Structure formats: C-alpha cells, structure tokens
C-alpha cells in the first residue's frame, strides 16, 4: 500500500499527488469483504440476490432482510457495511417520495440511480464525513403502461389534444450499480461483494445483452451464481435472499417483491445440483490427472 505513511489517506476530500482519494479506496475494501450481491436484468424483469453469511446461530432464519423496497417498483441490495446500506435505502425512499411529491408518479429507476449517485458522491467531498462503505445494486421496473397521475380522478380525453398516443413505448427494466465514489453505471448483470469476480464471470457467460434469458430462468441463474460465488468461503454458512420485479403482465405486476418461497427453494435446489455436477466433473478431471501422473 503506497498510501500508508504518506498522510494522504487520513482525510476524506484530500487527493494524493497522483490523483487518488484513498478514503474512497478504503471504502471499496469494506465492500470487498461483504457478502456477494448480484442483479440480473432481463427483458421481462430484474432479479436481485444476496449471499447472507450467517454470523451467529442465534439469528432467526429468514429475518434481517438485506434487500429493501423503494417506492413499489424498485429494489436495492448492497454489499459492505450493513448500516451504511440501510441509510442509503432510507435516502432512496426519501428521493422516491420527494419525486412523487413533485411529479405525482413513481420515480424512474434511472432518475433514482442518478440522485443516489450524486448523494454518494457528495460524501467524497468533505473532510467531515466518510464515504459510503457500500456498493449498491438498484433494480427496478418502470411501468410500460400509461400511468395515471397520483390522485387522478378521471380518464381524460381519448383523442385530440391531451389524448392518448397510440403505440407509444415506455418503461422497462432498469439495473444500476452505485459505488462508494458515487460512480454508477447501468448493467445487464451486476455483482459486488466478496465473490464478485466469480459472479461476474458467471454473469458474462449468460449473454444478457441479447436479452434471451427469461425472468424465471434469471431467478435460477441468480441462485446458482450466489452458490458459485460462495465456493471460496465454503467454511461459512449462508442464507440466500432473492427478490424480483417483473413487467406489468408478469408475476409481480411491476412491483418489487420477495421471490416466493417455493420458487426460491426450487432455485436453491437447482443451484446445489448444478454445483454438485461441477464438482463431479472436477473430481473426474483430477482423478484422470492423477492417473496420468501415476502412470508417469
């Protein structure tokens, strides 16, 4: 670590001579220790999943949720310092509520991510604060239907000025990842936390850009990827938490909800099976290698 002893890492908002903000980089370290969190964006919805390391046998299974709802159509999962994540969600809810106050409708996922990005970035500017110790994945669905304004009482004219526009396309899935620096990008698949490298490798294999994966398959993939990403910290037990947001005609009707218990269990079972399959292959591989070696 070149930063140690130089003094440039002691205060937020101070650049090092080579243009780095060490406090932000340390925040990233906090993220890298957190349980893996991923998001998958498909044509008909978004899936969020997180690996919750069980830190104590005394914790109630299924309690202490890590994926939060914002407004009705957005979910946020984060890796890193859990309390920072909570504060981040709280801010997201305030932003969504204030958006409704002004525009009388749900905040688009892109606009929410933008505001959250700005918020996180502001915590890199001042010496009195520290950056967020989380990388958050924001997933949501912007309604594809023509939305009624909050409090709207009538249907309005069908044609003419103020009438409906036929065939206008709007809405769709949204997936963004916001880092401690405030940097955020939109993604087809996002991963953060301890197992992010393995998870990213798996996500890349899915060819999400071609939008061929269905939401239901994405749920199973998400579960599998969390299980794959957990391989490196196998000694620790974990719990899988998953949520999804579908299109209006899908299973969640545009709302962010927990993945139903049956589906979650099914996905977990499939994930375990897939892993065992891999292990067997690997075992066979090593056996033959050994065989070769023995022959040598």
């Amino acid at each position: 670590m070149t930063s140690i002893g130089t003094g440039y890492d002691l205060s937020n908002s101070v650049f090092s001579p080579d243009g780095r903000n060490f406090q932000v980089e340390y925040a990233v370290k906090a993220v890298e220790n957190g349980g893996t969190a991923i998001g998958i964006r498909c044509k008909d919805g978004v899936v969020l999943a997180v690996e919750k390391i069980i830190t104590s046998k005394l914790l109630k299974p299924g309690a202490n949720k890590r994926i939060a709802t914002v407004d009705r159509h957005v979910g946020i999962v984060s890796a890193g310092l859990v309390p920072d994540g909570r504060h981040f969600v709280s801010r997201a809810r305030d932003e969504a509520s204030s958006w409704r106050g002004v525009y009388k409708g749900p905040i688009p996922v892109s606009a929410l991510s933008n505001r959250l990005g700005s918020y996180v970035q502001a915590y890199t500017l001042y010496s009195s604060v520290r950056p967020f110790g989380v990388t958050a994945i924001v997933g949501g669905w912007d309604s594809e239907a023509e939305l009624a304004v909050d409090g709207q009482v009538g249907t309005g004219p069908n044609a003419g000025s103020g009438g409906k526009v036929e065939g206008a396309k709007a809405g769709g899935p949204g997936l963004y990842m916001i880092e401690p620096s405030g940097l955020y990008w939109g993604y087809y698949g996002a991963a953060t936390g301890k197992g992010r490298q393995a998870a990213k490798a798996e996500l890349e294999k899915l060819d999400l850009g071609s939008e061929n994966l269905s939401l239901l398959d994405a749920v199973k993939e998400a579960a599998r990827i969390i299980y794959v990403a957990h391989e490196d910290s196998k000694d620790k037990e974990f719990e899988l938490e998953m949520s999804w947001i579908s299109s209006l005609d899908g299973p969640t009707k545009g709302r962010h909800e927990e993945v139903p218990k049956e589906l979650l269990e099914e996905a977990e079972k499939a994930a375990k099976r897939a892993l065992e399959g891999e292990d067997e292959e690997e075992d066979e591989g090593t056996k033959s290698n050994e065989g070769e070696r023995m022959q040598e």
Partner: protein
Amino acid sequence: MNHFPELWGRPRDDVYGPYNSSYLKSTGPKTHTQSPAVTGTSVVAVKFNGGVAIAADNLASYGSLSRFTDVKRLRVFGESAVVGFSGDVSDMQYIDRLLESIDIRENYSTHGNLLNAKNLHTYLSKVFYKRRSDFNPLWNHILVAGFDGDKKPFLSSADLLGTTYSGPHLATGFGAHLAVPILRRLFPEEKPIEEITKEDAVSALRECLKVLWYRDARSLDKYSIAIITEDGVELNEDQKLEEQSWAFAESIKGYGAQVV
C-alpha cells in the same frame, strides 16, 4: 418615453388609467379555503353479511355546472378498505395521495400493510380534525368501508370538522336525506347484518342511487360501486343506472300553473 425603465413596456397610465394592483394583496391575514370548488355529491354504503358495499356516482360539479362526468370517488386502500369521498375533489386528490404515501411506507416494513379500514378511519378523522382546528379544512365528508381488527365489517363516517359516527348503513350529502330513509326501511337497525346478503346490499345501493339521480340535481346516472369482502375489493367504476328517464314527467298534468 420616460426615464423610468421599470415603466417601459407597460400600459400607459394616461391612456389606460393607473394599474389596479389590488389583487396583489400582500398584507392582511393569511386566508385558507373558505368554500369548496369542484365537488362530488352523495356516497352511500351498507354493511352486509361478510362485508360492506359502497357506491358513489361519477360526477364532479363546479357549482351547478356538471363539470367532470368520469370522476372516480371511491378510492381503494390496501387489500380491503375503500374510502368514498363527497365534497371537494381537489381535497380528495390530496387525501388520495396522502393515502398512497402511507401505503408505500407501510409496505416497507417486513409485515406489509396491516392497516385496516378502522385504522384508516381513525387516521383520516384525525387529519380532518387537525385541519379544521388550523382553520384550513379539507372540505370533504367521507365514508370508510372495510373491516376492523376483529375482521368484522366496518363502516364509518368522517367529515371536514372531524366529526365521526358509524352505523349499519350510512350516506353523505343529499344521501343523508334521500338514501338513509330507504336503507332504514330495507334494513332496520335492529336487524342483524348477518341477515343481509351481498345481493340485497348491492340492489339497495342501486335503488338509492336511482332516487338520488331523480331528486339530487348534482348527481349522475354513471356510478362506481365497491364490494369489500374477505376476498378483497371488487371495484366497478363504469356502472350505469339503466333505463332511467324523466320522460314520464311530460304526462303529469294538473299541478302548478298548468291546469289542462
């Protein structure tokens, strides 16, 4: 042309007279709504065995002008509560947005939205009472229909003063004069609501709306009706009172000035 730039481009006093700035009142006491503007008329509701039925027409009047004819005055809250609004429509919209924000916030908790109609009524009556105490009333009279904490059918009223009352059947506005007597005849208060079927309740509400359509000048034959049962809310917003007509009035003779 004069030497006062702030006057340039303005109507000249010598041509148009001095500018009347009286409407730009910046002094004096702060004023609030002193009267409603666009209003909805009666809401009627009846409890029945296993639920509550509530109805209101789809009209919003601007004074005596029939201003909006597709206004939905029944608002659903959560899984099994409906609020029926009479009175000022903009205040109704404000309350609707308030309820929307509450519903969103309630759903943030892991147990979801547990607020029932009774909780909702308590809350809304306190909002009304607070606003009337601030001399800034929300100009509505509402009926809240749904279930209480014991899963029993719930029906209660709250108005712009914060006054509340409940009963097996209620009506606001003109309905208090025209619908309540009909409902009291059909469903005497001593009759347990367990003996009232859903069908009875719905047809009674239709009957009330008919009478209201004939005798309330600010009413409409298009209406909304919501039926709240254990299974949830069944809301129909584009109902019509069929075959209603004032044509019979032509044949009535012998009253007033007309003698032949």
